[in-house]
């Protein structure tokens, strides 16, 4: 176990201003264990009274070594670890990984699987935005939204449990399609959800959007212009709130998104309030997408039938010799991918979630790199936090919507 690092002023002398070294400003540690940092994030604040002069983030407290660990597992078995990266967007991580592997081995996914993937990804987006709204509301002292949002989220988790048996880490979306077909009650449950949900969004807006207390705490705070946002590498709702209309579901449609009609909400101010409005609008747009996908869902298989790469269904193993051999080979040794590298990106609730897989021709990925959106969104925080009050800093961290599993991997 390593020793606790005592950071003296000398180590970070180049990062803080002159006044800290002279003792005029106070160096405060907003430690890894803090109710408002949304996880284990450590911030070193240089404070002049209540105003933040500079803010130095220190990350790595949740570093899990997932990238190196996935190098020692076959492609199918490594899919289990993908849920644990951005733990609020588990099905989205599965989708990003599965699509990258399918691009690498050129595997076709049947249409029914694609529309089920879209429905689940959008439900996951709604669940993630609900947690964001609940915890950010808690940070600016709106406690009832926390309880309401978690109540809605329980309905979504019931739907996930109906399909896969697990509430959060489902690994339901795998290379080749999805694990198995959705049960008959799925459609009724999703329709019941999308019938009651828009009214709930109206409730949240009625609580917060025109509330003078909320506006005081969020309007005009932490503004970022569009060039600065692009230069920082921000993607997702913070970029769209700054005026750049960049959404991977529209720009590079994947998994059948081109057939659905939806809008991409954009604002121009780039402050905390704009990011709030963008995410609330995204909740409504997700409901629209789910409804269209449910209406258009075709019948058919849900997994690719190319059994060189995709395990055959269990029912065939008892009767078919090739199915048994394929099953054995795929679960012990795994399939071999061609020797090159691919990059594939999807739109997660936080931004561009990309997977870069380098393969050396074997059954295990040689190097897998996750382009996680919260990493780049977080590094704009010192820029946004110059000259604000500590209370505003808490609102800004909430609006960027970081998940430390994403930042530290």
């Amino acid at each position, binding site marked *: *176990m390593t020793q606790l690092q005592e950071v003296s002023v000398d180590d970070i002398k180049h990062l803080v201003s002159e006044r800290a070294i002279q003792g005029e400003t106070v160096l405060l540690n907003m430690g890894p264990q803090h*109710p408002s940092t949304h996880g284990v994030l450590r911030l070193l604040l240089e404070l002049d009274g209540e105003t933040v002069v500079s803010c130095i983030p220190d990350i*790595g*407290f949740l570093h899990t070594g997932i990238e190196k*660990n996935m190098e020692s597992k076959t492609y199918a078995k490594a899919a289990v670890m993908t849920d644990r990266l951005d733990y609020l967007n588990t099905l989205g991580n599965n989708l990003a990984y599965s699509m990258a592997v399918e691009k690498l081995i050129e595997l076709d996914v049947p249409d029914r699987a694609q529309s089920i993937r879209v429905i689940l990804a959008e439900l996951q987006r709604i669940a993630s935005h609900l947690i964001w709204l609940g915890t950010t509301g808690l940070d600016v002292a709106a406690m009832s939204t*926390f*309880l309401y949002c*978690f109540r809605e989220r329980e309905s979504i988790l019931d739907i996930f449990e109906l399909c896969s048996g697990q*509430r959060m880490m489902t690994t339901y979306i795998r290379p080749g399609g999805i694990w198995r077909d959705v049960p008959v009650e799925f459609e009724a449950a999703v329709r019941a959800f999308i019938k009651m949900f828009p009214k709930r969004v109206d409730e949240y807006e009625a609580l917060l959007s025109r509330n003078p207390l909320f506006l005081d705490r969020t309007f005009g705070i932490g503004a970022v212009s569009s060039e600065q946002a692009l230069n920082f590498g921000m993607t997702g709702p913070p970029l769209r709130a700054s005026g750049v209309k960049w959404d991977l579901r529209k720009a590079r449609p994947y998994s059948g998104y081109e057939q659905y009609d939806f809008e991409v909400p954009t604002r121009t101010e780039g402050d905390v309030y704009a990011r709030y409005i963008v995410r609330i609008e995204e909740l409504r747009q997700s409901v629209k997408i789910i409804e269209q996908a449910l209406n258009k869902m075709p019948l058919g298989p849900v997994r690719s039938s190319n059994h060189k790469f995709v395990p055959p269904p269990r029912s065939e193993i008892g009767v078919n010799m090739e199915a048994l051999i394929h099953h054995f080979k795929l679960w012990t040794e795994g399939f071999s991918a061609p020797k090159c590298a691919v990059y594939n990106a999807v739109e997660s609730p936080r931004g561009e979630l990309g997977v870069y897989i380098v393969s050396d021709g074997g059954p295990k990925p040689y190097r897998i790199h996750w382009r996680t959106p919260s990493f780049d969104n977080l590094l704009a925080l010192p820029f946004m936090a110059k000259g604000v009050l500590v209370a505003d800093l808490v609102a800004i961290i909430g609006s960027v919507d970081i998940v430390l*599993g994403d930042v530290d991997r």
Partner: protein
Amino acid sequence: MGVEQKLANMGAVTTTLETVVNWSRTRAMWPLLFGLACCAIEMMAAEGAHYDMSRFGMELMRPSPRQSDLMIVAGRVSRKMAPVLRRLYDQMPEPKWVIAMGDCASCGGVFNNYAVVAGVDEIVPVDIYIAGCPPRPEALIHGIMTLYDKVNHNKIKDQA
């Protein structure tokens, strides 16, 4: 039973000192807000209205270790976080209990590599282990009830 009933009618309750002390410790045990990763989300869901934890007196999670009795380690503990965990445990006043929630805190979970501490019992002594990845809120509540059982069987002479 006669004497106790007569006393109860008069408004007096008889019991041992141990029972009263243990009962009062369980009835308002304040957890430390120590959610690290995915299990923290299930802990927050257990706090929500569906699986209410405030019926155990735990609706308020204290952010300060000096004010809490129970540390629910929810999530994977990385090598960088381990000294911080130990420091927080040391800052909690006696009596204190630790629940290792989830597979990563109990034994390292899915991860078996250089960055994750395999089991938080390498750093702090653990009273209850809860399995699951992540454990359902009902599993967390079952773990808390088991902890109550354990506390209710505490003897005062063991702590002197």
